[in-house]
C-alpha cells in the first residue's frame, strides 16, 4: 500500500462529520417518535401502546445495561493472566 493511500484522510476521520452522523441519528429518532402520533400501534401489551414506549425503553435499557456492567467490573475484573498463574 502506498504511503499516500495509508495517510488518506477519510470522511469519518473528521470529528465534525461524526457529529453530523450523531445529529442525523437524533433526527431519525425524533422522526420515529413523531411517527407514534401518526401510526396507531397495535400492541398486545396495553402499556406498550403508550407514546414513545419503545424509544424510552430502548434508551433507558441500554443506559442501565452499560452502567450495571461498568459496576460489575469492580467485582468481576481480574488481571489478564489470572487463570494462567
Amino acid at each position: 500500500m502506498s504511503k499516500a493511500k495509508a495517510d488518506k484522510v477519510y470522511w469519518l476521520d473528521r470529528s465534525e462529520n461524526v457529529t453530523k452522523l450523531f445529529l442525523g441519528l437524533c433526527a431519525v429518532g425524533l422522526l420515529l417518535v413523531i411517527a407514534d402520533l401518526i401510526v396507531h400501534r397495535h400492541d398486545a401489551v396495553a402499556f406498550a401502546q403508550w407514546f414513545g414506549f419503545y424509544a424510552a425503553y430502548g434508551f433507558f435499557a441500554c443506559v442501565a445495561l452499560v452502567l450495571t456492567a461498568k459496576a460489575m467490573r469492580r467485582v468481576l475484573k481480574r488481571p489478564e493472566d489470572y487463570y494462567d498463574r
Partner: protein
Amino acid sequence: MIGEWPVGLTLIAGGVLAAIARGRVRDAVTIIAPLLALAQLAALAPGDYVQLHVLGRTLVLMHVDRLSLLFGYVFAIATLLGAIYALQVDDAVQRVSAPIYAGCTVAAVFAGDMLSLFVFWELSAIASVLLIWARRTERSYRAGMRYIAVQLVSGMLLLAGALVHEAASGSIGFGYIGLAAPGGALLLVAFGIKASFPFLHNWLQDAYPEATEAGTVVLSSFTTKLGIYALARAFPGTELLVWVGATMTAFPIFYAVIENDLRRVLAYSMTNQLGFMVVGIGIGTDLALNGAVAHAFADIIFKSLLFMSMGAVLLRTGTVNGTSLGGLYKSMPWTTGFCIVGAASISAFPLFSAFVTKSMIMEAAVEQGHVGVWLVLLFASAGVFHHAGIKIPYFAFFGHDSGIRCKEAPGSMLVAMALAAALCVGIGVFPGTLYALLPWSVDYHPYTASHVLAQLQLLVFSALAFAVLMRTGIYPPELRAVNLDSDWVYRRLGPDLVAACTSVVSRGLRTLGAAARGLSTGLLRWTLRWHGPGGLLARTQSTGAMALWISALLALYLVMYYA
C-alpha cells in the same frame, strides 16, 4: 430409496475423503459433500428409515419429520458456508474434522432413538474439539480439554437419562419426554449443557474464542443448536424453560459489554440468542415453537457471518481484542460491510433475518400472558443490538483508529461472508420461504406498521444511548482483563480446593506418620528394656539361684501353713 443412506454419513464420508485427498480435490470434496447432503434432504419424505437391531433394541438412524428436516437443511448450509470460508486454510486437521463434526451432528438430529443420539452426540463432541486444538497453542489445548470434559459429561447424562427412561417406559425412542418422566431431569440437564443453560454455559465462552479462525465459525453452528433441537423435540411446553431462557437472554449481555475479546463477546451473545429459543420451547405453542426453530435457523447463519468477519480480522491482524483494533474499515471495507449485515441481522432490523423469527417468540410470550418475560426479552433485544450490533463493528472497524493497515480478507472468506449475508437479507425480505419449512403451520405476519415502528424505535434509541454514553465518556473503556464467570468454579475454586485438601490431607498424614513412628519407637524401647540383651526378663538365671528361690518359697509356705 434415498432414506436408506443416512444424510450424516454423506458429510462424514466427505470428511474421510478429504483426509485422503489433497489440494483442489480436497477443496472440491468439502464443497460437494454438503451440496449432496442438501440434495438428499430435498428428496427425503417423512418416515423412519435405516433401522438396525442391536442388543435387542431397534435403532432408527433416519427419523425424518419436518423438525429434523429443518435442522438438517440449516446444518448442511452451515457446513457449506464453513467449507467455503476454510478453502484458504492449509490445515488437514480443520478441513477434515469440520465435515465429520457436521455429519455427526446431522446424524444426531436424525436419530430416532436415544442410543444412536448418544453415539453421535459424543462423536460430534470429539470431532469438534479438534477445531479448538488446531490453534496449536497451550491456551487452546487447555481450553479444549475443559471443553471436551464438559461435552462428555453431557453425553454421560444423556446416556444415564436414556437408560432410566427405557427401564421405566420400555422404549428407547426419542420423542416427547417431559420433565416429569423418569430420566427426564437427567436428559434436560444433558441437553441444557449443550444449549448453554445458566451456570452450565461457560464452556462456550471459554472454548469458542480459543479455536482457529475457521474453527469458531463451524463450532458456532452445530453444538448449541443440537441442544436446541433436542429440547424442542423432548421438552416443548416445559414451563421451567421459560424462566431459564429469560435468564439466558439477560445475563450474558452484561458480560458482553465489558468483554474485550470480540469473539468472546459473540460467544456471550450466542447464549443470549439461545435464550430466546429456549423461551420459545418453554412456551410450547405452535407459534412459539415455530419461532424457536426459525430463530435457530436464522441464528446459525448470522452468527456464522459475525464469527467469519471476526475470523478475518484475527487472520489479518493477529488479534480480536477491542483494545488493539479500530479503524479497520479503511483496510477491510468488504469485511466491514458483511459484519454490519450480520450485526443488523442479529439485532433484528426490519428486512434482516432475526426480525422475522425472534418476534414470533416475543409475540407468543405475550399471547400466553408472560408480560414480565416479554419485558426481559425486550431488554435483551435492545442489549443485543448494543453489544453485538454496535460494539462489534464499532470497536473492530470504526472507533479509535488503531493505525493497523492490513490486507482485505482472502477471496474465499469474502465469498462465504457474501453468501451468508445474502441469506440473512433473503430470510428477512422473503420470510415466507423459511416459514414454509417450519414444522407447524404458520399464521404470522412480521411486517406490520406497528411492529416495524416499534422495532425501529427500540433500535434507534439503543444506538442513541450508545452514542450519548460514548460522547460523554461514560461508556466503560475496553480493558485487557479477565471477567470472572461460572468457569471460575472449575478453573480456580476447584483447583484451589483440591490444593487445599491435598495440603490438609498431607499435613494430617505427616502428623499421623510422626505419631506412629513415635509410638513404635517407644514400644521398641520398652520391649528392649525388659526383653533385650541384659533386660530383666531376658536374663538367664543360674540353677543355684533357682533352688534358693524355691526353698525360700517352700519356707514361706510352711510358715503360712502352721501360722
